[in-house]
């Protein structure tokens, strides 16, 4: 199947917001999503963007029954490792179910790797849910390794009330 991979622009935010929700539903975490289309527009496409996006698009003749041609995306941002310096964090990678198995996920991830390397990055990190076997299989086949399992690193979060309390004198 024909598809194209390109950097996201501000007009893509509506579809990105839609697909963020689809991915969150798949991960059984839809109630955690607070970001809106407007947040994405402001945070991703202003002078100092907080994230970057890649879109996978198919031609009109392959659009979904709801009329969508934007059928996959990746969101990533640059971060810093105190061990290796510049690095890229792939925040989200998603392809709509009916378009899987056609190399689109690989192509999206490849684009993030290329852009990361071009920006001088030495590493790429991302997180996967431990029960998400299809994704785990895909990532292992790409040569990734699970540093939670091998090194015992746990992701921690301090948010909402806990964050505010911490900030109190």
């Amino acid at each position, binding site marked *: 199947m024909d598809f194209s991979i390109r950097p996201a622009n501000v007009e893509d935010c509506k579809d990105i917001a839609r697909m963020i929700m689809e991915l969150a539903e798949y991960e059984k975490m839809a109630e955690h999503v607070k970001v809106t289309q407007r947040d994405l527009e402001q945070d991703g496409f202003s002078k100092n963007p907080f994230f970057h996006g890649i879109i996978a698009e198919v031609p009109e003749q392959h659009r979904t029954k709801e009329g969508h041609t934007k059928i996959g995306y990746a969101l990533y941002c640059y971060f810093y490792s*105190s061990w290796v310096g510049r690095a890229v964090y792939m925040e989200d990678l998603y392809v709509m179910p009916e378009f899987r198995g056609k190399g689109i996920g690989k192509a999206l991830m490849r684009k993030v790797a290329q852009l990361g*390397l071009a920006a001088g990055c030495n*590493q790429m990190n991302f997180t996967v849910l431990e029960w998400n076997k299809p994704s785990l299989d895909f990532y292992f086949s790409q*040569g990734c*390794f699970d540093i939670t399992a091998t090194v015992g*690193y746990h992701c*921690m979060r301090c948010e909402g009330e806990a964050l505010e309390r911490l900030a109190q004198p």
Partner: protein
Amino acid sequence: MASFILRPARPSDVSDILRLIKELAKFEEMEEKVLLTEKDLLEDGFGDHPFYHCLVAEVPKQQSSEGHIVIGFAMYYFTYDPWIGKLLYLEDFFVMQEFRGFGIGSKVMKVLSETAVKTRCSSMHFIVAENNTKSIEFYKRRGAADLSSEEGWRLFEISKEDLMKMSTRYCLKKITMDIQLVPAELVKGLKEWCQGESLEEDHELLVLVPKGVETALVEETLETVKALG
């Protein structure tokens, strides 16, 4: 009781920051993984577009047995979560052993969380090794949740070598070719074209591509080739 101050790092702090990064890595038994240099820290933290921010903890000179004034640091940056928006990510956080228990760590967490709240971050994220029970307790006392245990998130990594493999669709196989096997007219044609375009011969690259490969793919692959020297 150690008196101390917390302040944003300055370019002149990079030597201490690297020293403390290595001390923390040593504590995590990963010292050999630190490849960063002072030059990297200087360019990446104090250039036009900083990749990280740093807080340092300083004590008066007479209080440190080895004469160090900078005895703790926290390295952080801002990232984005598609569900909740802006995040403050705490990359490294370390206080030298002899200065622990004096409230320096608590004060660092307070300043970072103030920064997070002021810059409208929804959350502060960081990583802890599961065997580092002291640190896990320190964070949990302050309301942190362990997402790996509670929600099943596993952190993955891809090294630069594997990133490079992933970014080219075909592996460039090393082919040892007798130069005479390359059609002479191809080589001649390339030289003549370069001369016509006033390009130096040393900057020529002849790429032999299997029949039927799309031009777009060839272009995309060539863009990933870096010419050194």
